[in-house]
């Protein structure tokens, strides 16, 4: 393995590594903890749980978020559920199985030891959330209920209606509020981190912009935790919230933190199709719907034509003329194949001319059979709020006619590279939740992001961060007056000044939309060498144009256009890195599909001999080609094999 990428995986059998780590990790006494400051950026599941737990332990925590309240972090929108290996259903689940499913679901591109730890911790998370008063769904005996998600043959997903993320986040927000009340955590809302400050090679603070006053602030600490979420909005249209961004991670990348597997982005199969150019974001229809919904398109092109013209309704098409293509191609998993597989299968049908909306970019998700089998009441109890949401947006009733869905950008498996302790290549910078690259390989299974975010925040960072800080106890409070803080602040001010002084003719949103088109077209669901090269060129041109022609009002205080401009400027650079990484990875795996590398029946074709590694990029300066480092993945506990959901 390369010297710069020490994964620090503890020795011993896989099932004992985490226990061994905890047994030997260094501790800090309470009096010293009070003297140590920690900055947590982000209040989603990862950030809120980390900040709350670190506060409980006695550290001095400062927590930051963009929104007006920590409760509004993007995690709030997660719908379907959270996985855990409880085996409450007695259907054969175990830590081992959750581990294997996750490694396999990720198409064997994740680090085994991390994934095992995640599966191990999954059960603690459920217990913790129940204790906090998270109202998970229960059966009449009063026990916790489960549902199934893609990529698994057991029912291990815990849920709170279709609002699981909301309930888990409110649990973590409650824990955070408790610590704010006690005074161990200090909350900074409407703040955006714009740079990481390094002092003598260690992460020692951040530069943040106060989004209400426009002030540039310095905040110092002994360590920094980044829990700033994923970068799906690089595609402009995605299921992510509007403020979701890649900037915090990107700025850390430019300060020496390696960026790992940027091209591993996830396209979710079941989203409401794009309606028009004005659209600002896409709405997810939870994966849980695939428990009971069946996906199909008409078998005959004539029917497709007539549907598009409005001459035929989907319910008029007899069973025999429908192609339930997932059930046909993957009889073992049927509609519950992993997301990447389901998304590509939808694209394949639509590319072949079977798409059912005007644009030819939609397939049906049909509940008629479920309503027959279970009754409308049961279906409503399970999915009522999702059906309502759909009806609200599309103005069609999914109890009467099948939903129309299409894949959309949803999640990013890539992120800042971290070792087993969740520490990046910058000492003292830890990364948690969707912002890191760690556990999902090339494809995340449904209901595993919530699990990972809370595992990182409640149960991993509190140990590993303590281990790091144990040799910092003699370090006095970090001053914000140092030359390093001064330089970082100046750089941020200059950058803002430069953007404001362009005074061009095109809005930030317009540039973002154009970037999104390039990314979706050439770096989306199917990638090809020629297209990727083209994307790199197009993005370079777009960047140039942006810095010559972007129009940002020069306002004091609130300046939303400036906020967006800073994010889009980073998205363009990140988009280029995604394309480069996709170009380099001459194989198909998980969410990364290279047209040149597929099996005869169109499945992703991995190349373990040459690409069994994590790609980690080191920044080399503006407009320089980044340096690629490779962390080879050792599979000792699971056998590397071609995924098969047939």
């Amino acid at each position, binding site marked *: 393995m390369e010297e710069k990428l020490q994964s620090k995986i503890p020795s011993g059998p896989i099932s004992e590594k985490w226990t061994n780590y905890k047994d030997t990790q260094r501790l800090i006494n309470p009096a010293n903890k009070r003297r140590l400051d920690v900055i947590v950026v982000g209040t989603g599941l990862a950030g809120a749980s980390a900040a709350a737990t670190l506060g409980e332990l006695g550290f001095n925590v400062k927590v930051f978020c963009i929104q007006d309240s920590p409760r509004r972090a993007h995690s709030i929108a997660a719908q379907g559920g959270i996985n855990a290996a409880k085996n409450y259903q007695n259907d054969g689940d175990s830590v081992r199985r959750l581990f294997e499913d996750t490694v396999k679901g990720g198409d064997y591109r994740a680090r085994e030891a991390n994934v095992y730890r995640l599966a191990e911790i999954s059960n603690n998370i459920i217990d913790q959330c129940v204790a906090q008063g998270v109202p998970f769904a229960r059966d009449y005996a009063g026990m916790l209920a489960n549902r199934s998600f893609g990529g698994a043959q057991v029912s291990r997903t815990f849920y709170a209606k279709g609002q699981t993320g909301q309930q888990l986040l409110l649990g973590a927000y409650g824990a955070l509020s408790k610590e704010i009340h006690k005074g161990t955590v200090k909350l900074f*809302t409407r703040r955006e981190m714009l740079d990481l400050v390094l002092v003598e090679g260690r992460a020692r603070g951040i530069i943040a912009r106060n989004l209400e006053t426009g002030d540039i602030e310095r905040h110092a600490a002994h360590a920094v935790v980044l829990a700033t979420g994923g970068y799906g909005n690089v595609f402009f249209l995605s299921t992510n919230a*509007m403020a979701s961004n890649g900037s915090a991670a990107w700025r850390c990348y430019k300060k020496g933190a390696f960026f790992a597997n940027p091209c591993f982005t996830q396209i979710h199969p079941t989203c409401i199709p794009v309606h028009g150019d004005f659209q600002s974001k896409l709405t997810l229809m939870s994966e849980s719907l695939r428990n009971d919904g069946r996906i199909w398109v008409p078998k005959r092109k004539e029917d497709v034509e007539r549907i598009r013209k409005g001459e035929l309704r989907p319910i008029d098409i007899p069973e025999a003329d429908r192609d339930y293509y997932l059930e046909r191609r993957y009889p073992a998993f049927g509609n519950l194949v992993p997301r990447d597989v389901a998304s590509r299968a939808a694209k394949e049908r639509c590319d072949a001319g079977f798409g059912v909306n005007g644009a030819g970019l939609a397939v049906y998700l049909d509940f008629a059979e479920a309503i027959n089998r279970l009754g409308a009441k049961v279906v409503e109890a399970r999915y009522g709020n999702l059906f309502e949401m759909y009806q609200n947006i599309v103005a069609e009733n999914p109890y009467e006619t099948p939903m129309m869905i299409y894949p959309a950008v949803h999640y990013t498996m890539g992120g800042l590279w971290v070792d087993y302790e969740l520490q990046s290549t910058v000492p003292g910078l830890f990364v948690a939740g969707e912002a890191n690259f760690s556990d999902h390989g090339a494809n995340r299974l449904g209901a595993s992001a919530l699990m990972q975010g809370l595992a990182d925040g409640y149960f991993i960072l509190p140990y590993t961060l303590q281990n790091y800080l144990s040799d910092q106890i003699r370090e006095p409070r970090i001053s914000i007056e140092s030359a390093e803080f001064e330089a970082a602040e100046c750089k941020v001010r200059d950058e803002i000044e430069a953007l404001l002084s362009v005074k061009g003719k095109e809005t930030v949103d317009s540039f973002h939309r154009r970037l999104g088109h390039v990314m979706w077209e050439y770096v989306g669901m199917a990638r090809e060498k020629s297209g990727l090269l083209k994307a790199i060129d197009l993005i370079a041109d777009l960047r140039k144009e942006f810095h010559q022609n972007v129009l940002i009002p020069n306002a004091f205080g609130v300046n939303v256009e400036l906020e967006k401009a800073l994010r889009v400027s980073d998205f363009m650079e990140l988009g280029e890195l995604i394309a480069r990484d996709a170009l380099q990875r001459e194989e198909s795996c998980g969410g990364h599909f290279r047209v040149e590398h597929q099996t005869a029946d169109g499945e992703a074709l991995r190349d373990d001999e040459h690409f069994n590694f994590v790609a980690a990029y080191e920044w080399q300066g503006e407009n320089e080609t980044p340096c690629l480092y490779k962390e080879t993945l050792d599979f000792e506990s699971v056998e590397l094999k071609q995924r098969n959901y047939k």
Partner: protein
Amino acid sequence: MNFTLKIWRQANRTAKGHFVDYQVSDIEPDMSFLEMLDVLNEHLVLKGEDPVFFDHDCREGICGACSLFINGRPHGKGEGTTTCQLYMRRFKDGETIVVEPFRAKAFPVIKDLTVDRSAFDQIIQAGGYVSCHTGGVPDGNAILVPKEDADMAMDAASCIGCGACVAACKNASAMLFVAAKVSQLALLPQGKVEAQRRAQAMVAKMDELGFGNCTNTYACQAVCPKRISVSHIARLNRQFLTGKIVRPWKKED
């Protein structure tokens, strides 16, 4: 579709606000209300004017950020929906639409249509949680919870903290918001332990922050995007009143 918008513009917390008229044209019926405002803002930016500031994030009715008072009603005329889930097809072509911020003493305007709702966070900080710490908790199935109670707790817990209840109330009371949290946790065995203490602490904070009294007009329930029922207020009152007698809470507790 074309619309005339009368929008509240206010430069900052201390400035005086006023309505400004804007025309928007070529709006598609499938646009959301916020997407219509995006169109307006893009025009304003291109004309060199200051865009309208409004809070939003998830745009799917769950984060609680969006908070517009449209034609005299929080979140406009949709029932059980947030502003971001309001589609232009619900308006008449050519209509004049009045857009204001949520107004309440405890929600000062920051700029234009955006208000400061940190008072809600402060109410939660006063006690809107179970005081357990991470780790050392029993197995998730160790304490059984009747399904009916779990479901009712879920209904209360679906509050998104948008503040529509406050904006709709003539007294600007936060009673429904507080009741939703108190009720959720009082219904569950895990939260019951400190239910009375929680009710007293949260109500005290609500009063301190300048929210008004509840006079049972139920305007809150009518506009709640998550259709949270005023029956939770009864449960809050029960916890509050018995608490005052059985386990009185003092601020320094």
